[in-house]
């Protein structure tokens, strides 16, 4: 909790909103103040005024530049559908940044980043902020069309569930996203290696499993349905081990980033076959 940037509660204005791949929209919002965040943090988005949805929607911060905050989203339901229709100039309410971020790297640490589908923003933001030569950034998607190639430079390792739609000059491995590091001998047995993952549940399980096998620390960013996003409603609880006992933690305020070793629900069915790279 310490060192988290102070969250804003304000109404911004859409300055850009459109597809950056076949499935992901990018929304850039101009605020009236500078926006700072830590990679892994999120914002609650809503329409202001009478059009507001009862609950705001959580989205990880993709990037921030002075007064502009950007998110990446997939249209899945009512809220994201409305978001996709927001033309430049339209007001958007923003609450954040919120939640526990991914930790900053310590000296000598090697970081492996695994993002799947719309789980990309936290790992992308971490890579942009802290990424070094020895670190490994991986992203998995359903197919090449879903990958926002423009965001992901050469160093990114890309996996796809099904081949196709990969632009000329770029490469993608067919398979689950964990396979991008599984075969990497340079990464075996690193005690100082930290795995940061965000994506669908099967990806998180595979990531936790991989980390356990290699003796890495593993931090995952979870998703839970949220009411408030700032810890007051207890609508988003996650079971977290605390020594010998398991207690409720809020995904929004204690998380969304948790140490995988403390998540019994993740361990429970770990190593399942379906560690797909793309969000359902």
């Amino acid at each position, binding site marked *: 909790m310490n060192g988290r*940037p*102070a969250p804003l*509660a304000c109404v911004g204005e859409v300055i850009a909103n459109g597809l950056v791949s076949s499935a992901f929209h990018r929304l850039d919002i101009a605020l009236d103040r500078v926006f700072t965040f830590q990679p892994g943090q999120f914002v609650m988005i809503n329409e202001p005024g009478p059009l507001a*949805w*009862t609950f705001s929607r959580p989205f990880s911060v993709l990037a921030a530049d002075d007064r502009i905050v950007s998110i990446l989203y997939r249209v899945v339901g009512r809220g994201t559908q409305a978001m996709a229709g927001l033309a430049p100039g339209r007001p958007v309410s923003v609450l954040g940044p919120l939640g526990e971020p991914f930790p900053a790297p310590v000296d000598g640490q090697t970081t492996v980043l695994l993002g799947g589908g719309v789980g990309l923003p936290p790992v992308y933001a971490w890579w942009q902020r802290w990424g070094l030569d020895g670190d490994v950034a991986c992203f998995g998607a359903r197919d090449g069309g879903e990958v926002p190639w423009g965001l992901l430079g050469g160093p990114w390792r890309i996996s796809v569930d099904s081949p196709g739609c990969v632009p000329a000059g770029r490469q993608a491995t067919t398979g689950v996203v964990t396979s991008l590091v599984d075969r990497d001998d340079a990464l075996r047995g690193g005690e100082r290696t930290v795995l940061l993952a965000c994506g669908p549940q099967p990806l998180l399980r595979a990531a936790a499993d991989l980390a356990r096998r290699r003796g890495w620390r593993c931090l995952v960013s979870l998703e839970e349905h949220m*009411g408030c996003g700032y810890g*007051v*409603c207890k609508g988003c609880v996650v079971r977290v081990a605390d020594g010998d006992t398991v207690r409720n933690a809020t995904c929004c305020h204690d998380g969304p980033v948790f140490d995988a070793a403390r998540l019994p629900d993740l361990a429970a069915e770990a190593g399942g076959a379906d560690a797909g790279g793309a969000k359902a």
Partner: protein
Amino acid sequence: MNRPAWWRLEANEPFRLGPRMLPGRVWTASGCFGYGLQAHEFTTANGASPYAGLGAVVTKTVTPLPREGNPMPRLVETACGALNSIGLENVGFAAFLETVLPELEARGVPTIVSLAATTPEDFGPMARRLHERAAGFAHWHGVELNLSCPNVAEGGHDFGSSPATVARCVAAARAELPDRALLAKLTPNTADIAQLAASAREAGVDAVSAINTVVGLDVDLRTGQPYLPRRFGGYSGAAILPIALAKVDQIARGAGVPVVGVGGIATVEDALKFFALGAVAVQVGTAQMRDPFAAARIAAALGQWSSS
């Protein structure tokens, strides 16, 4: 909006409720603003406090023992409101009394403590311990008995719908709470809320709060099953505003007890509708979840008229 011609209150001025003065008439509702501590983080970057102008924060209901609450998912958004099934997750009365309430006092947050219990007689000891521990607190203003949470399996539902039980709960707490306001929060899931309110009045409350959530259900069409593991949830938000207004009117005109309006309030217009019916104060619940400043904004708007 502009000040309506009939508006007479000073919403941000202290007003008497039972034995003491409360600092204002716009409050946050129990369960939608935590223990009143989490939102302080919004003050720094926004140049304003979410607590500014609030008459009270009604804290999340605490029970004699800690509760883990219901399984996830606990929330479902509907077309114009939401269902919740939190199940009274809370730290328990002891931890609340020792750590939470002193911090609220230290921060100067005007506080009304929400209590629930499984038998009416549990309210007596809780009120007594509050009185013993916090008698000197300047910012602790009262107790709201949550006689209405429909999500607790062990009887919460029928519990608060009998006038006799309401009276027993109120009497037990009143006996131990000599110098703080005592409120009873009533269930709307009854045919005659005015009767419950009258019963609470006779047993000694200073006011009743109305309403708690309405029993609702939503179905997940993928499975054909209710979204919430417990099937039912408490319905709140814009959709219940007309229901809350009706219940408040029934109490205000039929029970002779001051009433605090709750249910669907998101704007100053919504709040005004309760005041128009005679409510002495209002509480903001679900809207506070999407905007930590919702109640403060309403208080500020009403406050402007008072001074003009």
